[in-house]
């Protein structure tokens, strides 16, 4: 008997209005496990190369794993993958909340969506039954309103709604897919793909809990997590949110500021997690924010999500739209030298209302700020908005204009790389994009393995695709047991790109890739500071699925398989090593603070890339997986393409 999964994939052809169910066998689930790896299987099989990412031939996959919906922390996450309208290559993003678990309870492991509906529709899945319904009346509505309308229409408050906002409808190239009106599959423009298909929402409801092979062991793991959280390295993240990391990044010179010209920002303390906790979290005024200002994902004991509420002042913020993460306080805040937390929370609310990735949105705005401050953009270009560093009002206005594709916002809605191409005037030099995707708030000039991962990652810069350097540098002593499971026993020098560091980047990338295929939260599971380590992850897979012979090596291969499939997807699109480029800006020295003068070296980075490809078993010239490597990963069918 199979455990953990439903064994059902729903195929939806929106052009034909045809829905069907596929029931893959156990070997399929064992090989791909779910999430991103499973999505890659369908994308490679069901989509021809060269299609328009915003055309009906693109395929959008929403996928869960064999673990989703079990009663343990960090498992309610879902992959959204398709060809990316932002990068032109593979698109992939992960999101949490309650939707993923509910979709499992509703009877499916994945939904594969093709074609384009004639008029707006939504997909309604209820206890294993499914149908497409008219969504004309929802089109144009912001997320909170569409969600409320659907709850009323279906007369059920417990439905979970995954949807696009108006930005997705208008195909903003970094539009995301949202649930709870505040959880995002944010990156690589998956919301634009959904919008191009006239698919407004996927709504799910179900009560069928997945069967679990050994409930007692799963419960034991869950209990261990709850009782060890307070003493773990994520205790601060849980209570103070991801933005607790702002101060430590400031201290180590890794807080991107002034569009990555500096690694420090004087105004950091006004926008960090501690200040957020004391000021704008719901209930903070009455000291009740620990209860009211934190939120969670299904069955997660960590409760790291923020709920911001601002009732007075220029920027009022509705708690329904959650609160900013570290990435968001950075891209809207320090990237633009803005220290106004209310304005940042407002921009975050706008992203969640209209459905946009706050990383690409804030980073694209930051590109515009630098161009303006360097005199390459004028008030005429910006519809009269003054983009002087630190101007919070313009940042908020610009966010809304992007969502609505109004005026200058329409230029930025294409993402910074396309905007720079359109504007010209040397503004390409201000880009911090990798494969056209804007960089998140970490500093490759200091945490140098990130330069290798960002450059080679098939879907562009991503901070959640590998473990960052500190785990094998100064912090190594705290995680020796876990790092040993990955095969690392020696601390590496700070800012080095040693062979061992590159091996660490690759091995941890495989583990993160596995977690994106098991759809595990990377705050809860991981190779270093996370609540659970690699051995716990193996134990969880065994206990849920009953596959007692699964070991860490097998799981690593799932992640490696997914990564290789992604590189192959890109290779079919003509994207190879030539696209594995680090933006020029990162070869220029940082200014100010502890990281003053630090920069990447071109020769060192190229040599590191050579090594990385070699370690991956990919052709060093082209960066494409070799036939032998694909055979080794049981991906011979991909070679045959």
């Amino acid at each position: 008997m199979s455990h953990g999964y439903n064994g059902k994939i729903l195929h939806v052809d929106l052009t034909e209005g045809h829905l069907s169910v596929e029931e893959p066998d156990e070997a399929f689930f064992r090989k791909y496990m779910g999430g991103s790896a499973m999505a890659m299987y369908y994308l490679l099989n069901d989509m021809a190369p060269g299609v328009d990412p915003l055309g009906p031939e693109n395929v959008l996959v929403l996928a869960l794993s064999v673990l989703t919906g079990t009663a343990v922390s960090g498992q309610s996450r879902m992959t959204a993958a398709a060809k990316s309208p932002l990068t032109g290559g593979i698109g992939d993003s992960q999101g949490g909340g309650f939707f993923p678990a509910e979709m499992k309870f509703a009877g499916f492991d994945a939904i594969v969506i093709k074609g384009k509906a004639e008029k707006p529709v939504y997909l309604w899945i209820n206890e294993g039954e499914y149908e497409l319904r008219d969504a004309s009346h929802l089109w144009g509505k912001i997320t909170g309103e569409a969600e409320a309308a659907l709850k009323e229409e279906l007369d059920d408050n417990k439905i979970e709604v995954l949807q696009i906002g108006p930005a997705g409808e208008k195909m903003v190239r970094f539009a995301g897919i949202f649930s709870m009106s505040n959880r995002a599959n944010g990156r690589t423009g998956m919301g634009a793909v959904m919008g191009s298909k006239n698919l407004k929402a996927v709504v799910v409801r179900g009560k069928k809990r997945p069967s679990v092979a050994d409930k007692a062991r799963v419960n034991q793991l869950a209990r261990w997590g709850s009782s060890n959280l307070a003493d773990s390295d994520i205790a601060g993240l849980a209570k103070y949110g991801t933005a607790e990391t702002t101060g430590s990044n400031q201290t180590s010179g890794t807080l991107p500021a002034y569009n990555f010209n500096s690694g420090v920002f004087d105004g950091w303390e006004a926008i960090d997690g501690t200040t957020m906790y004391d000021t704008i979290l719901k209930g903070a005024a009455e000291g009740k924010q620990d209860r009211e200002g934190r939120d969670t994902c299904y069955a997660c004991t960590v409760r790291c999500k923020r709920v911001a509420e601002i009732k007075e002042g220029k920027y009022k913020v509705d708690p329904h739209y959650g609160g900013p993460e570290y990435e968001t306080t950075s891209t809207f805040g320090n990237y633009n030298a803005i220290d106004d937390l209310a304005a940042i929370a407002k921009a975050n609310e706008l992203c969640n209302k209209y459905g946009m990735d706050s990383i690409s949105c804030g980073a694209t705005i930051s590109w515009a700020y630098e161009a303006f401050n360097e005199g390459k953009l004028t008030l005429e270009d910006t519809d009269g908005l003054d983009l002087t560093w630190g101007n919070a009002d313009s940042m908020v206005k610009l966010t809304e204009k992007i969502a609505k594709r109004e005026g200058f916002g329409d230029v930025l809605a294409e993402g910074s790389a396309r905007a720079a191409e359109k504007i010209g005037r040397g503004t390409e030099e201000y880009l911090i994009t990798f494969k056209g995707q804007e960089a998140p708030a970490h500093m490759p000039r200091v945490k140098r393995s990130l330069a290798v991962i960002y450059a080679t990652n098939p879907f562009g810069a991503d901070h959640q695709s590998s473990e960052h350097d500190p785990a094998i540098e100064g912090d190594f002593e705290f995680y020796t047991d876990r790092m040993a499971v990955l095969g690392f026993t020696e601390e590496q020098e700070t800012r080095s790109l040693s062979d061992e560091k590159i091996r660490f980047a690759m091995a941890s990338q495989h583990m993160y890739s596995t977690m994106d295929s098991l759809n595990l939260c990377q705050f809860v599971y991981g190779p270093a500071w996370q609540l659970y380590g690699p051995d716990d992850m193996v134990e969880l897979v065994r206990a849920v699925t009953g596959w007692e012979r699964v070991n860490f090596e097998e799981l690593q291969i799932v992640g490696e398989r997914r990564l290789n499939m992604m590189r192959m997807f890109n290779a079919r699109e003509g994207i190879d090593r030539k696209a594995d480029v680090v933006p020029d800006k990162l070869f220029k020295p940082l200014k100010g603070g502890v990281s003053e003068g630090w920069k990447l070296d071109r020769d060192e980075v190229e040599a590191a890339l050579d090594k990385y490809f070699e370690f991956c078993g990919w052709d060093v010239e082209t960066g494409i997986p070799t036939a032998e490597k694909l055979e080794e990963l049981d991906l011979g069918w991909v070679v045959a393409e």
Partner: protein
Amino acid sequence: MLVIHIQLYSILREKLPEEAKGRADLQFELGSTLTDLLGELGISRRVVISMNDEHETDRTRELQDGDEIKIFSSISGG
């Protein structure tokens, strides 16, 4: 004796009474180090330390009278 000024952030604030908001002036014997400070505060997990606005990774570093020390608990990625 020497007096140092500390500011603790996020969860580390809970090492001090709530009304202190993570701020305190602490007395130490001459020759005391950052390790002594962390021991005194009962901090054993990974932290990032700013000492007079410099990133300090050497835990054997001796405390000086009037030092301004900020201590952060933090995840290293995410």
